[in-house]
């Protein structure tokens, strides 16, 4: 019995140690990634300086002439500016949010306030299923169906009839900003609508009945009671969706037409994003004898990391605060 007891205590210690190791591994991986980005990024940060953030041209230079800039090797004529990718990331994600937000809210409102319970349950399942579709499949659909559709029908009509709006006129391309924004918007619908729906469903039935007893219509109850109640969580879900759009790679690679050295001037322009460009360029960057292009890509990764992490932190804070304040409210009532 005694021996058994000490064995059990040992096992318990091993259990604590192993779970601590496994538990902290997430943090370890995070720092490993950050460390690699920093080590690889530093030469680019020193060589390119502020130009990295302010210039449009991305050019690895003449691949036969090696020089040294501020102590680091680089090809002669090399210029690394992230503005095309940075702006493409922000604009396409912003567009995705612009299109995706009303769509997601519509879905959430329908699921919580309009659809009968049984339909709502099954429909919720399909909406969540949408979240599980690999992004390359979205991209594939965008490439085969959406972009040609935009090019042949939608964009010409928009350019013709809405061309007076700045950025909506001009030549159309099909593959580009609009296609990217649309595909991204579809990809954020599941996450935004699922979180919004959960928050809206938490509206206390007492408040909805209060509205009903005052002679409010269903729409008025949704607009004046449910949406204000779930506001914080909805905003949080939108930022979370934005986070997903910002980091999305494959779908954008397939429908953006991978612009280089040119900023988008209309809704139809070819664009590029930080993640899409990194994925597509890495292979050729490895052939840069100076290695500077890999360093510059690491700096791009660092920028993307900061953008998406910030968006995620903001979103999580908002989502959590939304739910906590609603819980407090329940206690008070």
């Amino acid at each position, binding site marked *: 019995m005694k021996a058994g007891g000490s064995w059990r205590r040992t096992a318990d210690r091993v259990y604590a140690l192993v779970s601590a190791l496994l538990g902290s591994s997430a943090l370890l991986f995070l720092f490993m990634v950050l460390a690699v980005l920093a080590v690889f990024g530093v030469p680019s940060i020193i060589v390119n300086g502020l130009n990295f953030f302010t210039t449009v041209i991305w050019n690895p230079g003449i691949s036969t002439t090696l020089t040294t800039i501020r102590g680091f090797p680089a090809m002669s004529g090399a210029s690394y500016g992230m503005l095309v990718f940075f702006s493409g990331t922000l604009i396409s994600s912003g567009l995705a949010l612009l299109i995706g937000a009303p769509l997601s809210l519509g879905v959430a409102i329908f699921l919580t306030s309009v659809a009968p319970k049984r339909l709502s349950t099954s429909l919720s399942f399909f909406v969540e299923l949408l979240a599980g579709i690999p992004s390359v499949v979205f991209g594939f659909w965008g490439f085969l169906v959406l972009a040609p559709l935009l090019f042949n029908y939608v964009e010409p009509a928009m350019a013709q009839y809405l061309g007076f709006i700045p950025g909506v006129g001009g030549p159309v391309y099909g593959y580009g900003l609009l296609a990217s924004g649309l595909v991204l918007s579809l990809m954020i619908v599941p996450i935004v609508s699922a979180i919004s729906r959960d928050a809206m469903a938490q509206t206390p039935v007492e408040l909805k009945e*209060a509205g009903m007893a005052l002679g409010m219509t269903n729409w008025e109850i949704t607009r004046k009671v449910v949406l204000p109640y779930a506001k914080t969580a909805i905003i949080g879900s939108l930022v979370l969706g934005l986070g997903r759009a910002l980091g999305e790679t494959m779908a954008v690679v397939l429908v953006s037409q991978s612009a280089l050295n040119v900023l988008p001037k209309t809704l139809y322009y070819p664009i590029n994003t930080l993640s899409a460009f990194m994925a597509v360029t890495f292979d050729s960057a490895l052939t840069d004898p100076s290695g500077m292009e890999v360093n510059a890509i690491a700096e791009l990764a660092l920028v993307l990391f900061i953008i998406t992490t910030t968006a995620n932190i903001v979103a999580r804070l908002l989502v959590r605060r939304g739910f906590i304040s609603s819980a407090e409210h329940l206690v008070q*009532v």
Partner: protein
Amino acid sequence: MMKPEPEPVHRVASGQGTREREILDHERSKGLTGDEGGLIRLQSLCAYYGEQKVLDEISLSIARNRVTVFMGPSGCGKTTLLRTINRMNDGVRKFRVTGQVLINGTDVYSSEVDPILLRTRVGMVFQKPNPFPISIYDNVAFGPRIHKLTKTKSELDQVVRESLEKAALWEEVGTRLNKSALELSGGQQQRLCIARALAVKPEVILMDEPASALDPGSAFKVEELMVELKENYTVVLVTHNMQQAARVGNEVAFLYRGELVEFGPAEEVFQNPKNALTEKYIRGTL
């Protein structure tokens, strides 16, 4: 069962004059005079959740400017009965009603009645105080704003003030209307909910155990308020608190397992119940 003899009172609530007249005209057109038939008449009312019958052939008449109490043990159907009057159970799945709920002679379940408009004439106060998580002022102004009852800010201010005064809350909150309603005590929140209901200028106020979640002091204030409110409104109260029913009720209906066992003037029901079940319930032996 005796039908209560309603008092021949035609008190016209401020701001309700025209509506009162409309009601009277309507009554006359139905061949009724005054309150003879009661403001609200339930006729052979049955209610079902799916196959389950929860109200069985209820017929009774609720007089104007009185407090009518529905009492009975839990699950007797009193809340369901109350909620049929303003059609609050419309959205409940598989809920259906047969028979009639007549208000001023019009069946509220007839196709010509819009439940939204019905609920502006028949207000409701719930068991749990349920103010919106916004300011005191905005809570009271909520209904008038939705229904565009006022044209100017000062008019709205006036409605808010009057409603709070009628709910005996103005003295306590008049100086802090912009504070959150959630900062109020439970009793104050409940009176705020009453003020919010009054602001839409209803004729009838349905109260579903409005004092049961409150401390005794607050409950007493709400009870006092019910008695005051009947001056201008018709109050229908659901309670399982017999003392409360005796204190505030003019007429009392005793329900048991979905059936109306006894209905009559409060004194009679409590002092001289006709039905053995009622007597048992009052003695606390049911």
